[in-house]
């Protein structure tokens, strides 16, 4: 009763009690940050932390329909087998190649696109970015046709035009790796160029002028002005390309689905899928996943250490 009266009384003032409370809560400097970060915290808890903990738990289990038992470290004992080494080797080669290609080439392209003498830069920027929007499955299907086994496939016609004999792309270890790297490079090139372009925009033009006055040549300008400015981007790109490379799955899947001849396209994540889901060995798959996590962690730390990312923070 009392509240009704007070609301009626308050009405003429135009500021009823409860809405004011609500808005003051929303505008409160204490609560707002928590509200804004809560979607992230929640998704982190449910989509990352919970699966992560249960994966660790599962890696010590043997999981069968209707039966789950703890088997200690036995899953981990089985991880270091020849197939895992093949998968790890494939993945490592893939990571090294993609890291090199996906930092060097985009940097060169970005330098061109950022140059005032370059014509139609907007068109090229858009054209290079489009692959990133295409689904890898669709792109992979087209790549599969381009690199088909028959002499009529585009890639083989191209080879025979230059007098080389056609290649069975999907059946050789080197050509198989080539296919995966080409697909990944095609896909991510545009995104990485964007990062570099963004970085290049931040380079202070006065520095170039100063360099010009000092008589620096193009290479010296790149080395002493441009590169220091975009170094953080290089570090960022090598790190995420490494991590993405280690968790690569689709590039291999579109060419061979889940089993490639002689395991030439087997990646660590492909191996987890094969063991955990296809062969119904979840515990073992989880163990491989945890090992992969450690590998990525160690590699990333070494990489960041070598590129001096830690030092910067300290100074």
């Amino acid at each position, binding site marked *: 009763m009392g509240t009704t009266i007070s609301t009626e009384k308050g009405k003429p003032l135009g500021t009823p009690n409860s809405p004011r409370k609500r808005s003051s809560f929303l505008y409160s400097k204490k609560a707002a940050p928590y509200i804004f970060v809560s979607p992230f915290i929640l998704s982190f808890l449910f989509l990352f932390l919970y699966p992560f903990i249960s994966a660790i738990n599962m890696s010590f289990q043997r999981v069968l329909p209707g039966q789950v038992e703890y088997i200690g470290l036995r899953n981990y004992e089985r991880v270091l087998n020849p197939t895992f080494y093949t998968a790890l080797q494939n993945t490592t080669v893939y990571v090294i190649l993609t890291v090199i290609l996906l930092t060097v080439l985009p940097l060169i392209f970005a330098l061109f696109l950022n140059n005032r003498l370059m014509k139609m830069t907007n068109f090229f920027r858009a054209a290079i970015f489009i692959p990133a929007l*295409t689904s890898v*499955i669709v792109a992979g299907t087209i790549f599969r046709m381009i690199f088909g086994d028959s002499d009529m496939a585009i890639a083989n016609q191209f080879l025979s035009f230059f007098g080389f004999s056609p290649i069975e792309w999907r059946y050789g270890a080197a050509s198989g790796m080539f296919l995966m790297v080409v697909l990944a490079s095609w896909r991510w090139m545009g995104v990485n160029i964007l990062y570099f372009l963004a970085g290049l925009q931040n380079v202070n033009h006065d520095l170039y002028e100063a360099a010009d006055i000092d008589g620096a040549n193009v290479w010296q300008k790149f080395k002493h002005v441009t590169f220091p400015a975009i170094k953080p981007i290089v570090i960022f790109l090598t790190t995420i390309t490494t991590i993405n490379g280690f968790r690569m799955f689709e590039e291999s899947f579109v060419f061979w689905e889940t*089993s490639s001849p002689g395991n030439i396209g087997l990646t660590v994540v492909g191996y987890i899928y094969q063991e955990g889901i296809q062969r119904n060995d979840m515990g073992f798959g989880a163990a491989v996943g945890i090992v992969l996590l450690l590998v990525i962690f160690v590699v990333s730390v070494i990489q960041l250490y070598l590129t001096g990312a830690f030092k910067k923070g300290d100074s």
Partner: protein
Amino acid sequence: MRKMVLAALSSVFLLSACGGNNANDASGDLEEQTVVGDDIEGATELTFWNFQELHTQFFEDAVIRWNEENPDRPIQLIAETYPYDQMHNNLLLALQSGSGAPDIADIEISQFANYLQGEVQLEALNDVVEPELDDLITSRFDIYAKDGNYYGIDYHVGATVMFYNEEIMNEAGVDIDSIETWDDYVEAGEQVVANTDAVMTTVESDDHFTFWCLISQRGSDYFDENGDVILDNETNVDTLQFIYDLVYEHEIAEIAPGGYHHAEEYYGFMNDGGAASLMMPMWYMGRFLDYMEDLDGKMQIRPLPMWEEGGNRSAGMGGTGTVVTNQTENSELAKDFLAFAKLSEEGNVKLWEILGFDPPRHDVWDSPAMAEDNRFYQYFHDDIFEILHDIRDEINNLNITEQTTNAQQEINSNVMHSVLRDQSRTSQEALEDAADAIRSRMIE
């Protein structure tokens, strides 16, 4: 300017939307859903998952017949087709986690072992299978059994046969009925290669249908009756060497374009008269009809050549077991309906009429209904079931164990590739490595 930005943005969204949809298609969302019997009031709802849309057609017909004959227990069937991997993964996870599984599902033979591990989450079908066992090819039921319980009902026997392209064989001057042993076959192959542009046959480098058929024909397998690995036994090594010799020694065979007999490239190659013959199970007939129409009227089916006089002339290969999961609320109804669809005489006739499969119930093979003209007889010839009758008792059991999926994986991705395509290992080495890899998984 603003308009241009809007146009650019919307095209970006369109592009990414397309991408998303396509990715979903390929990664495996529902491809097709068919509801049958939704016009009947009070019908019990059953869901059915499969990975082959043709199987839906078969069950569609079965539901209509069931509802006519059992007005007191009508069924409404919701049949859902998913891509192969997706369906098996979904089903496995649903059974593993205890919720979300359909009432009825198809499980392909090479995946079946996964479902027999631990406490089987499928309903035993003994009460419907056992009364009919005398009229069934029992080996087709043993492959889906564990500890005396039958868990799956197959669509077909999968008798392996030789498909001959008679046009090419005639051109080479070979009478296909004169080929009785594999030696005759090799001899005929040499004639084919000498007199025509075609090779005698193709072998799979990325799948197991060339290898498994042949070792099964010779009474061998990946595992023995006790489930021990015999993949590297003498017969298997010898058989793999024979396949190798067909390609590199006698030079009458080629590695199948695309690596296996279900590849797009292979259909094109065969359709153009690339090979004079092909060894595959009977159910491969449908692939001829669907993908190799230029061969219409040219193909003849014959039993396999024998390894020695009086030896087997076939092997039962492939298969898909239909199961009832333990998450169904209507287990009796589901089982009765499944038996009606796939174990009854009429159901078995339908397996032939609708799907072109050699039905597991052999007493219907010579029934008049089976002789009626259909598209398979028109494409091939009309003595298909006489041949089946001839070879009925020459089909060995397969020993399916919990490790079958692993064995298959080893064969597909390592053994055939390294021996046939890469030529990096001998038959003996490749099979020993594969056998060791499987054994190492069985220790725990």
